[in-house]
């Protein structure tokens, strides 16, 4: 049996090519993902472990992490913890060799054009704390020297590269408010985690850092053990002198924690990638099944002969499965090798795209090899199982008949009934409120439609007749050919459908979402600009005051956000300038109005009002979280909340007494003359051209959110591209099979006068019909699913209405048609090359 199977595989090399390619790509995706995430995680771990080299024991404030943004909420009220005095004491411990204190916080650096360097999140400033030898082990200076005074600043080498700053250049930066300047004293390499992740890091001398970052004490004190002292020994020594609410952690522990964190994030990344690899493999199943169905059909006689000479059904099935095993193995091995290439390529791609991934050896875990091989083989054998069973059903007498048994329609009747039931079940599930049930319903519908595709193929392809009419006889033949084997056409189209359904559904939801956000920004915000810190840190109240005094500004109000409880339910309470607020936002009042917002009064969103049974005119007790004091406030109005405007609003005078440090979340500004470059310029100038401050108009706000949605959409497109590519291989495969099976017919057509160009056109049109069939099904199903998902989104986003992205959908269909043309290139060429003589003679 094995030898027959091997011979068969070798004999059908060319016809198995597309199958092997499909499985290979799927396996490459899987193993590439695994190798890449392992390699990446490993390199990251090594690198970050190195960054803890200088730490034997770290002392941290409780609940703080080494990379937090440096928020100093409530720091003033705590007893002093990590002070210089404690640092001295720790350094003098027996067993401690050196101690350094570190502070860090958000620091915006302007590039040469005045723009913020790096992302809004990863721009950190830190201190240079010289140890005894005058060096800080965290930084490895490659050029210049460490910062020595407030006039100095040092940049990490990547930031220096990116901005083009060199030693001696003047750099503008800002931490919380004013813009400062400093001269670049040096450039350093570092293993700091945020820099590895693509952020930027600047270093000030110790005193300057503490001053500009607003730190009265250190965030962390790192002790290095003297030779002969273990980490744990030093730790227990430190623990005796620890200030209240601080912890001592060993360097090993820190490094392990970090490793766990990296492990977690890489594994969630690989999970996402593997889901898409799974989709790609699933699509591949259709191609494999098609191929083996054809191979079995072509060998009907041969298989019947085997049965006639005494092979059992099981043996026939097994011979098909052995073939599948061999094919799967070849595909899995090549796919695995390709996957390693994919991993390497992915790394250099991401590096060239700006992310700086740490270098490290390629990690090919044994599990990766096992998983890759197993997946390739199992998927192939699974897909070949049905054709294998069908092969076993061939009666021995078929060896004597010359005609192939045509598939009975009974099979389709059963199939259609099952498919209809599954689709109906899916629709019921989809219209459920629960998100998980809904997602399940979507998947069930997809499966049902896949089962129904042979049934759907006939009316669809019949409907395409008018479009094919201009092509005359080739169009007609293409149409008739594409329904000749409904099962094969269906599974080819289904493969394409799966990817397009997902793509369309996501596009519909994303477009509708962007539109909803635009509407929201346009509808609820009357302010021309919002001013905030680039990293959404609190804004100094002076900014708001400065803006209010600008002659160009018509009205402005800070949003001074506090948190607290309203009758026991947690809520956001924003202090606003009650007079200006009406000019800056449009609130949709269900009762009351802005006019009542004076003195001890409050606006309540409808959601909270409903929940707490509050109405306009009631008095409500609001307990502020920060000082634990309660204010009794009269409800001036109830308004309809949305994603941008929600929670309680009170006059500033209500919120201010409860805040230990007055800061604003953002300032809303309305200009005399609306938005303009000049108006924006006036704000920028008034605030001292500060890179840390972000000024956005409505477009920028919706673009920011829309941009994030778009980026995610593009990533999903990229990830689904593999599934589409495999589906295209499926179209190629089907066409190649069709051409091969119909070579007599094509030869006859050539003999009676169909020229090569027309033969090509015929194959091409068949390809387009099949591709468009899959695309139309996918797009239709995708829109339906987008609608269903949108229903649940609409519950939480008031302005959400379904937008069908007609342009995009037209583009998808156009691409599908193009895919059809491209997939037909090779099969059409081989069809046109058929010699009419050979085709007539061969039998």
């Amino acid at each position, binding site marked *: 049996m094995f030898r027959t199977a091997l011979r068969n595989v070798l004999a059908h090399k060319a016809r198995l090519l597309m199958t092997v390619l499909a499985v290979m790509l799927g396996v490459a995706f899987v193993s590439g993902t695994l190798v890449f995430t392992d390699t990446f995680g490993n390199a990251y771990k090594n690198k970050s472990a190195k960054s803890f080299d200088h730490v034997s024991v770290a002392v941290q404030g409780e609940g703080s992490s080494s990379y937090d943004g440096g928020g100093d909420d409530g720091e003033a009220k705590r007893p002093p913890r990590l002070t210089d005095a404690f640092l001295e004491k720790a350094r003098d411990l027996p067993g401690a060799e050196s101690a350094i204190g570190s502070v860090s916080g958000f620091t915006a650096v302007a590039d040469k054009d005045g723009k913020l360097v790096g992302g809004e999140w990863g721009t950190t400033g830190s201190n240079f704390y010289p140890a005894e030898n005058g060096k800080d082990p965290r930084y490895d200076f490659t050029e210049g020297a460490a910062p020595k005074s407030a006039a100095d600043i040092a940049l990490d080498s990547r930031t220096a590269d990116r901005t083009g700053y060199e030693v001696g250049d003047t750099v503008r930066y800002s931490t919380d408010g004013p813009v400062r300047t400093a001269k670049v004293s040096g450039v350093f390499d570092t293993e700091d985690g945020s820099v590895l992740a693509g952020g930027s890091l600047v270093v000030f001398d110790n005193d300057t850092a503490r001053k500009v970052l607003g730190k009265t004490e250190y965030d962390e004190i790192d002790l290095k053990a003297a030779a002969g002292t273990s980490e744990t020994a030093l730790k227990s020594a430190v623990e005796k002198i620890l200030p209240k609410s601080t912890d001592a952690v060993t360097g090993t522990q820190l490094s392990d924690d970090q490793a766990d964190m990296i492990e977690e994030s890489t594994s969630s990344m690989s999970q996402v990638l593997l889901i898409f690899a799974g989709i790609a493999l699933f699509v591949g199943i259709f191609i494999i099944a098609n191929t083996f169905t054809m191979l079995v059909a072509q060998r009907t006689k041969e298989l019947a002969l085997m049965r006639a000479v005494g092979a059992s059904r099981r043996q026939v099935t097994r011979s098909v499965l052995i073939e599948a095993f061999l094919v799967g193995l070849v595909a899995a091995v090549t796919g695995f090798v390709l996957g390693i290439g994919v991993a390497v390529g992915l790394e250099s791609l991401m590096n060239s795209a700006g992310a700086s991934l740490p270098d490290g050896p390629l990690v090919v875990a044994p599990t990766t090899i096992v998983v890759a091989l197993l997946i390739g083989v199992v998927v192939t054998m699974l897909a070949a199982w049905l054709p294998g069973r069908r092969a076993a059903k061939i009666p021995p007498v078929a060896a004597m008949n010359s005609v192939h048994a045509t598939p009975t329609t009974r099979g389709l009747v059963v199939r259609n009934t099952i498919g209809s039931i599954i689709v109906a079940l899916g629709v019921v599930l989809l219209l459920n409120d629960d998100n998980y049930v809904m997602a399940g319903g979507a998947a069930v519908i997809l499966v049902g439609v896949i089962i129904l595709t042979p049934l759907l193929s006939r009316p669809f392809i019949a409907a395409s007749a008018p479009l094919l009419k201009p092509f005359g*006889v080739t169009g007609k033949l293409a149409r008739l050919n594409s329904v000749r084997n409904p099962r094969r056409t269906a599974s080819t189209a289904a493969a394409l459908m799966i990817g397009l359904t997902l793509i369309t559904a996501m596009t519909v939801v994303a477009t509708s979402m962007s539109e909803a956000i635009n509407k929201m920004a346009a509808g609820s915000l009357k302010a021309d600009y919002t001013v905030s810190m680039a990293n959404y840190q609190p804004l100094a109240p002076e900014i708001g005051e400065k803006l209010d005094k600008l002659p160009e500004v018509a009205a402005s109000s800070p949003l001074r956000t506090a948190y607290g409880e309203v009758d026991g339910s947690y809520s956001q309470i924003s202090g606003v300038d009650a007079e200006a607020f009406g000019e800056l936002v449009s609130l949709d009042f269900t009762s009351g109005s802005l006019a009542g917002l004076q003195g001890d009064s409050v606006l309540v969103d409808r959601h909270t009002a409903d929940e707490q049974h509050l109405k306009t005119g009631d008095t409500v007790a609001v307990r502020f979280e920060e000082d634990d004091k309660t204010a009794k406030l009269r409800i001036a109005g109830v308004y309809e909340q949305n994603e941008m405007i929600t929670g309680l609003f009170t006059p500033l005078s209500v919120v201010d007494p409860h805040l230990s440090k007055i800061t604003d979340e953002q300032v809303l500004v309305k200009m005399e003359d609306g938005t303009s470059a000049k108006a924006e310029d006036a704000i920028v100038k008034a605030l001292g051209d500060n890179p840390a401050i972000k000024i956005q108009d409505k477009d920028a706000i919706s673009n920011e959110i829309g941009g994030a949605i778009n980026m995610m959409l593009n990533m999903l497109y990229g990830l689904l591209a593999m599934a589409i590519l495999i589906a295209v291989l499926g179209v190629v495969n089907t066409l190649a099979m069709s051409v091969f099976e119909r070579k007599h017919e094509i030869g006859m057509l050539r003999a*009676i006068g*169909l020229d090569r160009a027309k033969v090509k056109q015929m194959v091409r049109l068949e390809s387009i019909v099949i591709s468009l069939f899959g695309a139309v099904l996918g797009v239709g199903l995708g829109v339906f699913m987008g609608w269903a998902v949108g229903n649940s989104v609409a519950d939480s986003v008031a302005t959400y209405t379904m937008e069908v992205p007609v342009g995009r959908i037209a583009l998808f269909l156009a691409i599908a048609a193009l895919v059809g043309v491209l997939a037909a290139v090779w099969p059409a060429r081989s069809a046109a090359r058929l010699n009419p003589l050979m085709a*007539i003679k061969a039998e």
Partner: protein
Amino acid sequence: MTTTPFAARATAVAARATDLSKVYGQGETQVVALDHVSVDFGQGEFTAIMGPSGSGKSTLMHCVAGLDSFSSGSVRLGETELSMLKDKQLTKLRRDKIGFIFQAFNLLPTLTALENITLPMDIAGRKPDKQWLEQVIDMVGLSGRLGHRPTELSGGQQQRVAVARALASQPEIIFGDEPTGNLDSRSGAEVLGFLRNSVRDLGQTVVMVTHDPVAASYADRVIFLADGRIVDEMLKPTADGVLDRMKHFDAKGRTS
């Protein structure tokens, strides 16, 4: 042999091969399929090409029908010299001037009988001559079966569709490659009768390759091929006469 001893008599020439050779391979492995063959096929004449397997009879027909290329010599179909034509022009020539009937029927299973019959004209984008079409369909006796697909027809009926297809476009010449090879004798006799009638009544030119003496007896003229050469000719053949001649060649082939 380079002259034209096997010229058509009296009537005009529909197709003419002159000094036609076809050689496969080179050197040691060289096989000569056609060896300087010269032959005329007269207009309105039914010619059968006979010969043992490997004699080159099919190759001769394929070359004359513009289906196959040749090594040297010339083939003229009407006024057209085939050796000068590119694939595209050859295809057009076959489409407009030639009809084919194959051994394996070679109908398209997706099309109905009528659609199969009009296929060559559909390919050319021409409207079939309605009257002529009806006459042809009538002659082959397919009137009741035009809506059927080939799988719903018997072998004989399928070949009748093929004959109608060849006749319907009113080609200058029809080539048949063993048209009765896959048929029982009754169906075969019917098909040959149609061909015979089309020559006699409609003035059609037919060239047919066959190895069956009975089939050959329907022709006006039989030419015999052996080893790539025309070795004999018989006018107004009878089945017995052809059989005798064939036996003679076989014997000669064995003794030589």
